[in-house]
């Protein structure tokens, strides 16, 4: 009787509730809707004409970048839009997503088919190759030829193969430092005390005598910091001979490698090379002589350990400005040695790229915007440093000082076009960008540039090999056990994990890549 009526009343109540929620949310998202509507306006008719700006229809471009959202973003964007309006009749919405959230969020945004225009993509965030295989990015070769004049002019041709997947370019390379360098950060006071000449350090073993001096003269301090936290293999070459071997999977723990003087690029296990055994023995020697802590393999947090200042030599990056960078980071002054030559590989080139979304309504305009960032210094610095007087002050023509605690300091200049368009910051040498370009030019380019190993078919083997390597490298690189015993054991385990199949697979991929690229 009355109970029968109950569901109806409840239904009504729920419906009303739902409607109210929908209405409320509708009100709130008004601006978002308008934006979407704006972006949706069709513009195909106009884009054929590149000469006269007047004929371009107004469009709004959405750009996803990774970084810390800035308070004054809107203010800066308004200024940017003034320039863009005049030059390419477009407006820009920059959506900054947090470092930790970027991968996850971009994944969902891409999967949901949102029609954004540009997005930061790279080897380490919003993964480039995955995006390409998902079909999320537009092939850009034609667009680059048509609208990307300044981009092609500035980014040297030799780096473009790195961005190619199956012969097509899916991302615009941001011009930044491509060279990876390995450095030894040496405590400055002790380096001075023992008159260490860092220019004489040509390979890792060259630091050994200095470690010995420290061990002798400085009780209570550990000469070399080794930890069980291994992120990549130590390079197996040095400054004297140049790059003799290279890793197939970039710098990782994966032991697959090739010899660079071998035109066939025969893949083999780097652990079987005499170079590896020699290196392992060096670490063993350091361990036995007490240069490395006895419990080193159990240490996990390398950065935290380094900061304690209880070590004299710690490893780090090397490049222009890295010495002062490391000093700030570690909290004490260091001098740097360079045990291996700087090198460029696929991963380091595609560390910063901008892709154009397949669902973008205005890919032409997006490319024009990218080109403009390479061309227009004023625009680029506006994006990078914000508004003069409000967010930075100019010290001289090319140097700026960032106003402390200002509401715009995204610190992600390398995400927009060419980093070398930026003003240098106070404290940086005036020729920072030239130094970086020089470092790029001087560094050794991996013969495998452009090749990216695809582990999809060998996921299990690859994961197993890497896990075993992680486990054993922490023993070998800390010298905890005799490599004569450990390395054969490791090789046996890798065999059982299927490294031979992995080698065969890598060989196949390299052969195919070679054939496709005419190497």
């Amino acid at each position, binding site marked *: 009787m009355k109970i029968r009526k109950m569901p109806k009343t409840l239904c009504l109540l729920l419906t009303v509730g739902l409607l109210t929620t929908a209405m409320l*949310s509708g009100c709130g998202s008004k601006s978002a809707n308008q934006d979407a509507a704006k972006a949706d306006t069709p513009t195909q008719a106009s884009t054929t004409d590149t000469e006269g700006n007047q004929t371009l229809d107004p469009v709004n471009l959405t750009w996803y970048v990774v970084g810390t959202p800035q308070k004054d973003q809107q203010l800066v964007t308004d200024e940017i839009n003034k320039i863009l309006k005049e030059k390419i009749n477009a407006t820009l919405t920059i959506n900054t997503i947090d470092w930790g959230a970027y991968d996850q969020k971009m994944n969902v945004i891409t999967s949901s088919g949102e029609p954004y225009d540009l997005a930061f993509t790279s080897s380490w965030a919003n993964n480039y190759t995955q995006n390409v295989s998902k079909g999320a990015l537009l092939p850009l070769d034609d667009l680059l030829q048509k609208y990307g004049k300044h981009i092609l002019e500035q980014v040297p041709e030799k780096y473009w193969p790195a961005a190619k997947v199956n012969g097509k370019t899916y991302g615009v390379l941001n011009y930044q430092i491509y060279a990876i360098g390995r450095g030894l950060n040496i405590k400055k006071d002790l380096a001075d005390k023992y008159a260490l000449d860092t220019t004489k350090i040509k390979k890792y073993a060259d630091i050994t005598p200095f470690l010995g001096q420290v061990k002798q003269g400085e009780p209570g301090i550990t000469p070399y910091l080794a930890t069980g936290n291994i992120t990549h293999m130590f390079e197996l070459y040095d400054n004297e001979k140049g790059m003799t071997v290279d890793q197939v999977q970039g710098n990782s723990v994966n032991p697959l490698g090739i010899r660079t003087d071998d035109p066939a690029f025969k893949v083999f296990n780097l652990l079987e090379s005499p170079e590896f055994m020699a290196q392992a023995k060096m670490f063993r020697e350091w361990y036995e002589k007490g240069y490395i802590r006895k419990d080193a393999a159990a240490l996990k947090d390398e950065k935290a350990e380094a900061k304690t200042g209880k070590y004299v030599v710690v490893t780090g990056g090397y490049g222009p400005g890295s010495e002062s960078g490391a000093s700030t980071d570690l909290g004490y002054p260091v001098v740097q040695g360079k045990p291996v030559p700087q090198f460029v590989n696929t991963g380091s080139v595609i560390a910063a790229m901008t892709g154009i979304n397949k669902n973008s309504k205005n890919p032409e305009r997006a490319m024009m915007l990218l080109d403009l960032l390479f061309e227009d210094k004023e625009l680029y610095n506006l994006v990078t440093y914000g508004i003069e007087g409000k967010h930075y002050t100019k010290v001289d023509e090319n140097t700026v000082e960032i106003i402390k605690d200002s509401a715009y300091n995204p610190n992600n200049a390398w995400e927009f076009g060419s980093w070398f368009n930026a003003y240098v910051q106070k404290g940086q040498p005036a020729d920072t960008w030239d130094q970086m370009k020089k470092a790029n030019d001087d560094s050794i380019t991996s013969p495998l540039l452009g090749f990216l190993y695809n582990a999809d078919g060998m996921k299990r083997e690859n994961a197993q090999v890497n896990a075993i390597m992680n486990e054993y490298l922490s023993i070998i690189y800390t010298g905890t056990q005799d490599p004569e015993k450990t390395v054969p054991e490791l090789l046996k385990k890798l065999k059982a994990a299927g490294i031979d199949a992995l080698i065969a697979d890598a060989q196949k991929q390299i052969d195919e890549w070679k054939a496709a690229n005419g190497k």
Partner: protein
Amino acid sequence: MSSSVINRGFPVFKIISHIILLGFSLICILPLILVVSVSLSSEESIMKQGYSLNPEKIDFTAYKFIFADPGQLLTSYGVTIFVCIVGTIFSIIITTMLAYVMSRKDYPYAQKTSLYVFLTMLVSGGLVPWYIIISRVLHMSDTIWVLIAPYLVMPMFVLIMKGFMSDIAPAIIESGKLDGASEYRVFFSIVVPITLPGIVTVSLFILLMYWNDYYLSLMFIQNSEYVSLQFLLWRIMSNADYLRNSVAASMGLLQGVAMPDQSARMAICVLAAGPMMFIFPFANKYFVKGITVGSVKG
């Protein structure tokens, strides 16, 4: 000397049990004190001496780091408090009503409704469809409501609530009806007061869920006006982590920035958990009752 201690009838057992209880409460309290004191230590002393209960020097660096933008922090507290209050009220109303209907044995679709609610616990549409519906169909991204609406009905809580409701004897409802009460009158005047402990318990669960949530902000919020507290804190921490450890940093793309690490983590703990610790004791009375409500009573 000791003869006075081993007095006849002296409650040795009492002393032992007190010591055990004291030890137990220390185990509970010490970590909290440790969190607070580590958050007040300097990064340097943590590196050198490890965690210590008694920081040698009180140092507010970690709090300064987090409070670098007090406006944003206040906004976020505001957002979270608003979401907690409004969300909990709406959610508990809907949850209670839904559970009540499901618990009524004379409602023919009670079983089916229960099954429907229960099924959503087992199967879901997945992340991407969920995202598409909320952001592109309902257009709720970047509104305050997106932080509330998706959690309005949690099947788990509905089922717990239903458990409370099922204890009500049908005779009570019947008697109310015999006296001429409408369904609403029965619900609000009889059912709600009887299940109040249950309602408070579930409310607390819901409150905690809204308080602790950062995921909705992560997925749907761009505008810093609607960033919730937990997401803000999570963001501060994850950004700091990223800047320290990322590949980008090792490639020299980022400049070296000095940031407190361990102490900042603890300071974030204090800020995130603090307010809830004050709410718990007040709800405690109901909470205990709520837990035991299902059991047999004399």
